[in-house]
């Protein structure tokens, strides 16, 4: 049995994830879509916090909500008039998209509900920063120095690629 407060918090988080992700793909103003995406990302960070992954929640807010959404907003302001509505969808395209999404929802939802055992939330100590850092920097079993270095090279390649692609000739 859980406390009423945690259940209310869970319901708010789940509802905001569902509502804001539906709104982000159905609204016709592109700047509003970016704003709803921001709220959905915040709700995801709240899920991470409620599952005791504080570091992950902080990274989610800093990188996604702080970095990526700002990039989106800047590129939207650079490429389109923010007040404009996008053109109405052709009904054929909308039907095909709806069929794909709903078929996937039904199949995966059926599999989940029929196969997923109801595991209760096991007790876990929240992971402290020291352990995160040691695991990220270690070279032993289950430690992640090599992917960390690989991703730093990837980010460098991404910076150079971004500059080369977007610069004025």
């Amino acid at each position, binding site marked *: 049995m*859980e406390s009423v407060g*945690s259940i209310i918090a*869970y319901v708010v*988080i*789940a509802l905001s*994830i*569902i509502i804001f*992700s*539906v709104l*982000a*793909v159905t609204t016709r103003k*592109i700047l509003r*879509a*970016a704003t709803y*995406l921001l709220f959905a*990302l915040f709700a995801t960070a709240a*899920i*991470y916090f409620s*599952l*005791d992954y504080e570091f*992950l929640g902080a*990274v989610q807010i800093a*990188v*996604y909500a702080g*970095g*990526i959404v700002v*990039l*989106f907003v800047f*590129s939207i302001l*650079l*490429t*389109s008039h923010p007040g404009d509505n*996008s053109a109405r*969808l052709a009904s054929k*395209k909308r039907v095909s998209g709806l069929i794909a999404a*709903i078929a*996937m*929802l039904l199949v*995966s*939802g059926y599999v*989940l*509900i029929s196969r*997923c055992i*109801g*595991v*209760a*939330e*096991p007790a876990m100590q929240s*992971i402290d920063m020291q352990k995160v850092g040691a*695991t990220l920097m270690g070279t032993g079993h*289950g430690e*992640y120095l090599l*992917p960390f270095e690989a*991703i730093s090279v*990837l*980010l460098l390649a*991404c910076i150079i690629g*971004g500059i080369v*692609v*977007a610069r004025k000739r």
Partner: protein
Amino acid sequence: MEKTMLCYLIPSLIMFCCGVYGFITRKNMIAILISLELMLNSVDINFVVFNRFLFPGSMEGMFFTLFAIAIAAAETALAIAIIINVFRSVKNVDVEEVSKMKF
């Protein structure tokens, strides 16, 4: 009422299906990228939830999500650079207008 794994997997599934719908129906390139972010984000939620509920002692899912977030940020930055470049040469970000490999 107990919170089980399903309580977190179902919202993430709905988020992924919204991403699929947006990816198919949108025409603006940036809106397509927004749908892509929704899909990536729901997959991240799944990693974390499986890690938390099935293997609470280990941290594999958390680190996989950490790296996935970094790669998603890199991918978005590069895609936006490409979109701005396309906008500069075609004056449009509509996927149906951009049909020529123009230089």
